[in-house]
Each structure stands twice: as structure tokens, then as C-alpha cells.
């Protein structure tokens, strides 16, 4: 895709437009005000919206998420930034024990967004590259989003901000400036949570994936079409919770083959859950066993050759697809 709006600018536009139209939306995080954020997503926000709505905080992730919960109780729509999504770990207690459970326990919701850059490929080492969705996948009460396109980044972030429940919004940092699209200017970009998107239609095998892996899956599909004459469908989940099981099942029942591809480690990764659901809902339609293509079960290494080995690559997806198609 080509165009003028990057994935990063799409995120910026979503926050800007929501803050412009809704005085209850505000942002909070480390170095997001004066400095404009580590990735400059919120550059110029302090000047436009003032220090009450653009809050530079101490290095205190638990306090940031806690304050977001409290403000949400009072009717605000806070957006809390984790400078890197890896730093969500110090806020784990606040998220899984407070934010996720508070509506169930008390009837008072916490409509907040926790967003931040995730993902590998930027040679950023074990603490600036993680994909954390599986840490939270087993916690009832959280929604999770992982957009692959600029359009979805903007549209899903708007949906997340307006959602009455806590949403974890995972932005893939590898895509921040690599993805450029032309976004519509005369109509609002809005993408509801919980709906997958067919990135590439196909009839022979379904690649279920999300985030930056959508592009590797796409590359693999193009090569398979060229070299093997088979058509792979790429299903971009976009939302991880709620999961669009219906879209997955519809595609798999049609193609009879499925690979789940994700950048997070294998053990306990979302692929296991997705394949379990496929087995429950579409087992009789399968022509081959469903399989996974994932990262290694190790921390994310720093040095480029190590990281490249760690991450699932296009060739891995091609090899797995050929195993399925044989």
C-alpha cells in the first residue's frame, strides 16, 4: 500500500481527533507532553490541549494505569501510554486485578485505553520488542487490539477510546513509519472492535494472523500463488479479544486448511486458543491438521542475526503452507 499517512500518523490523528471532539479524552504517560513521546506520536499535543489533558507522569506505570482507572470511573476517557509495551509489566496488577475486574465486582466500569509500541524486528532487545497479548489473554474483562494497517490503527483506536471497557492497544513499532496509506479525508475512519478483515482472499488455505505478521503472510501467499499455483487467504484478526471466531470458522470451513501465524512465542500463545476453537467449530471440515508458525520459546535476542532467527519469517510460512498443501 502506498500513500501519505503513516501507521504512526494514523494513531496520532485518531487521538487528536478524539481529543478535539470529546473534552473527556485525555492522555497520560512518560515524556508524552514536553517531549512529545518517545516516538513523537503526541508531539504538539501539549501546546494544543494544555497540561491538564496532556499529563507528563513519573516513571510509574502502576500509578499511570491506576489514575486512568480512577478518571474513567469519573466519566473521563483516559489514554495511558506505555513508552514501550514491555513496560506494561509493572502495571500488570493494576490491569488484571483492578481494571479488568472492576465492572464485574462493582458495576462501575473503567473505559480506558492502554496503548504502546510492541513487536520485534527493530533490533531493540529483550525489553523493547515483546508481544504481550498472551500475558493478558487469560484475563476476563480486557479487550485487545493489534492493527496491521494505518486505516485500522486509526479506526480501531477511535473505537477503543469510545469503548466503555478497558482496551489494550498494541501498536507494532516496525510498522510505525514503514506503512503508508491514503486515508479518506471526507469521512470518519472508524473500525468496530471484534471484527476480523480479509487481507487477501484465497480458497486453498487460511493464514490466520495479526500485527506485522500480516505482511509476511501476504508475502508468503504471493510466492505460493506464483510458484505453486495455490491461493492462500490471509485473515487479519485486528481484534484479539473479542476474537472474531465466526470469521475464522467461516474461512477455515471454506478452505479446509489453516495455519495460525504470530510473532509471540509458541507456548501459551494465542495460536493455541485459536486452533482449539477451530477444532471445536470446524474439525470435520479440516483436510490437514491445523498448525502454528510462531517465534521461539526464548526471550527476544538483540543481535540482528539472532532476532531474525527468533522471529517467524516468510520462508517459515511458505514451508508450513507447503506442508499443509501437499
Amino acid at each position: 500500500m502506498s500513500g501519505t499517512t503513516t501507521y504512526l500518523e494514523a494513531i496520532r490523528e485518531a487521538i487528536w481527533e478524539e481529543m478535539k471532539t470529546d473534552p473527556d479524552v485525555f492522555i497520560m504517560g512518560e515524556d508524552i507532553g514536553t517531549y512529545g513521546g518517545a516516538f513523537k506520536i503526541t508531539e504538539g499535543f501539549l501546546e494544543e490541549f494544555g497540561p491538564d489533558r496532556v499529563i507528563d507522569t513519573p516513571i510509574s506505570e502502576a500509578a499511570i494505569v491506576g489514575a486512568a482507572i480512577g478518571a474513567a470511573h469519573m466519566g473521563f476517557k483516559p489514554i495511558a501510554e506505555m513508552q514501550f509495551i514491555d513496560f506494561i509489566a509493572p502495571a500488570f496488577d493494576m490491569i488484571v486485578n483492578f481494571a479488568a475486574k472492576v465492572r464485574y465486582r462493582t458495576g462501575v466500569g473503567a473505559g480506558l485505553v492502554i496503548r504502546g509500541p510492541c513487536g520485534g524486528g527493530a533490533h531493540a532487545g529483550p525489553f523493547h520488542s515483546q508481544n504481550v497479548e498472551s500475558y493478558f489473554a487469560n484475563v476476563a474483562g480486557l479487550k485487545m487490539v493489534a492493527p496491521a494497517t494505518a486505516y485500522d490503527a486509526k479506526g480501531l483506536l477511535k473505537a477503543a477510546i469510545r469503548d466503555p471497557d478497558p482496551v489494550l492497544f498494541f501498536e507494532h513499532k516496525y510498522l510505525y513509519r514503514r506503512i503508508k496509506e491514503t486515508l479518506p479525508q471526507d469521512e470518519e475512519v472508524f473500525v468496530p472492535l471484534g471484527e476480523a478483515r480479509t487481507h487477501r482472499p484465497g480458497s486453498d488455505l487460511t493464514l490466520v494472523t495479526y500485527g506485522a505478521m500480516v505482511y509476511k503472510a501476504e508475502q508468503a501467499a504471493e510466492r505460493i500463488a506464483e510458484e505453486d499455483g495455490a491461493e492462500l487467504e490471509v485473515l487479519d484478526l485486528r481484534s484479539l479479544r473479542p476474537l472474531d471466531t465466526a470469521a475464522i470458522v467461516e474461512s477455515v470451513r471454506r478452505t479446509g486448511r489453516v495455519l495460525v501465524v504470530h510473532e509471540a512465542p509458541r507456548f501459551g500463545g494465542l495460536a493455541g486458543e485459536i486452533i482449539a476453537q477451530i477444532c471445536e467449530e470446524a474439525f470435520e471440515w479440516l483436510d490437514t491438521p491445523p498448525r502454528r508458525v510462531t517465534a521461539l520459546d526464548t526471550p527476544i535476542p538483540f543481535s540482528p542475526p539472532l532476532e531474525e532467527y527468533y522471529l517467524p519469517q516468510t520462508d517459515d510460512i511458505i514451508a508450513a503452507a507447503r506442508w499443509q498443501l501437499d
Partner: protein
Amino acid sequence: MASLNREQLRDLYRFLLLTRGLEEWLDRLFKQDQIVGNLCRSLGQEATAVGSAFALGEQDWLAPSARDLGALLVRGVRPREMLLQYMARASSPSGGKDEVDHFTIPELGLLGPISPLGTQLCVLNGVALAFRMRGEARVCLTYQGEGETRTGASHEGLNFAAAQRLPIVVIIEHNRWAYSTRSDQEAAVADWLDVASAYGVPAATVDGNDALAVYDESQRAVGRARRGDGMTIIVAETYRMLGQDQHDAQDYVPEAELQGWKARDPVSGLEQYLVDSGFVSRAALAVVKEGVRRELAQAVDEALSAPMPDGDEARFGTFDRDAVPVPWTRREAVYDDLSERPAASEAGGP
């Protein structure tokens, strides 16, 4: 001394009595197996909770710890509601979904805690931020046991509130024990005011067993917060007269120490003061006692006859919309969803 009129003084006394009386009922009901789960008592600490909550206005918010039952009562929670909560009934403030004082009631300005400690202040900070963003002169007040202040979340919360100059009053309830661990094993500080002093905000120590002293100090702190002068930390020196909970006989507590604090009982202390000073007559106090006794007896009757929730209620309320589905093994037609599946022979295979 406290700027409370005769009627307010009688009210303060009534809330102390109500707190103690309600806990005595809870203890009785626990022994009769009417309480689901556990029970944490605030015996000996009632003056800290009641005196401080008394300093708040109607529009303010309060976030109690597990040992601040009195503060909840001052905010307007009815004894019946507390009983229902402990008995896990359908009509309890959390609908049977959570225990103890784990509920939030915005109309009463109440933010409930969760069990992992230190977290509640972090959330209360957001309530205070909301007051500031809306330009409202409202105040938040919360409590942390001295043990709780040793969590990372507590430090983050205290520092965040101080750095943001939030309108918050934090009362450190120094009751000497974190479960079975003495406070001198929890930290190397001898005076817990040193902990408070680390945040660059006004801090004070108060006799936590003296409801009037707690009220005075809290009122000063609430006034500062309301004027926009930020957070105050108050260290209330008090003592946990019973174990961590009903299962803890607190054999580890030195008997002499316990007896020393027994002589400083907050309820009889205030009663003595009111009579000696001539503010409230013994006859008037007797009327208060009888009122509390009747109120509690009626509340217990009502709570005991309240129904438990239906199990199916568990599916509702995780999100704003949509319940989680009924587990497939509990549906009337377990195999219905298989009807549209192809026969094994049509399905093909690898």
C-alpha cells in the same frame, strides 16, 4: 479542640458505637457460619476511620482499606448492606461478586479496594485528577496500613499524588502489625512520619485512638487539599487489637503490649470525654446506645432473610454489554451445535 457542636459530637460517638456493634454482630454471625469467606475486624482502630471520614464533605470521595468499616458507615453505607456483602447475598453492594468492603458506590463518593495492596491509592489519584480537570474543589481521602505502604504501588501512588499536587489526604494507619509481621520488621524507620516525609508534602502524626484528634488533623488536611495546596499524609498511631482475621489468634502479640493499648480504647475514651466535659449527658448516650442496638438487630434480621444470587448471574457484568455464553456442557441440547456438521465420510481427510 474539635469544632464540633453537641449534635455532631453525639453523631461521632454513634458512628463509633455502630462500627463496634456491627463488627460484634459480624463476629457472632461468623461463628454461626452465616458469613461467607473471611472477616477482618477494626477493633481498637475505629476512631481513625470514623474521625477522618467525619472531616469530609458530601461531594468528596473516600477509599477505605479492609479495616475502615467505620468510614464506610460515616459515608452512608447502611449496616444491612455490609451484612449482605459479608453474607454474599444477591442484593449486596457487589451483588455477591466480591467480599468485605470491595465495592464502589459513586453516589456515596466511595472507591472500594482490591486485595493486592497499594493499588487503591493509584486509582483514587485518577478521581482526584478528574476533580482538578473539572475545576471542582473536591477532596479524596484514603487509608493505608503501615504494611501496605511497603508495596511498590503505594510508593508510586504517593509520589504521583505529591508530584501532581492532587487534593488527597492519605492516612497511614500504623497499627503495629502486618498480619504477623511487626512494623519494625517491615521497615528500618523508627518513626513512620519519616516515611511520610519522603514525599515533600505536609505530614503529621496523630493519636489514632482519639477520634477528635483524628478529626482535627484530618480537617486541616482536607482544608489544605480543598484550597489547592495538595496532598497531606497523616500517620495515625493505633493498634490492631485482634488478629489479621478470624483465623488468627495472634499468639505472636505480647500480652502486656495488648493490655497497654486496651486502656486506650477509642470508644470508651470518647464516651469519657463527652461526659466529663459535659457536652453530652450519660442519659443522652444511653439513648444513642439503645438506638444503635435496635438498628443493628433490625439490619441483621433483614440480611438473614435476603436471598443468595442465582448461579447464572455469574455470566453477567464482565463487560458493559454481553454476558459470557452458557458453558456448552450446561446447555439443554448439548449436541445441537453439531447438527450442521457434515458426516465423517463427507468431511474428507488428510
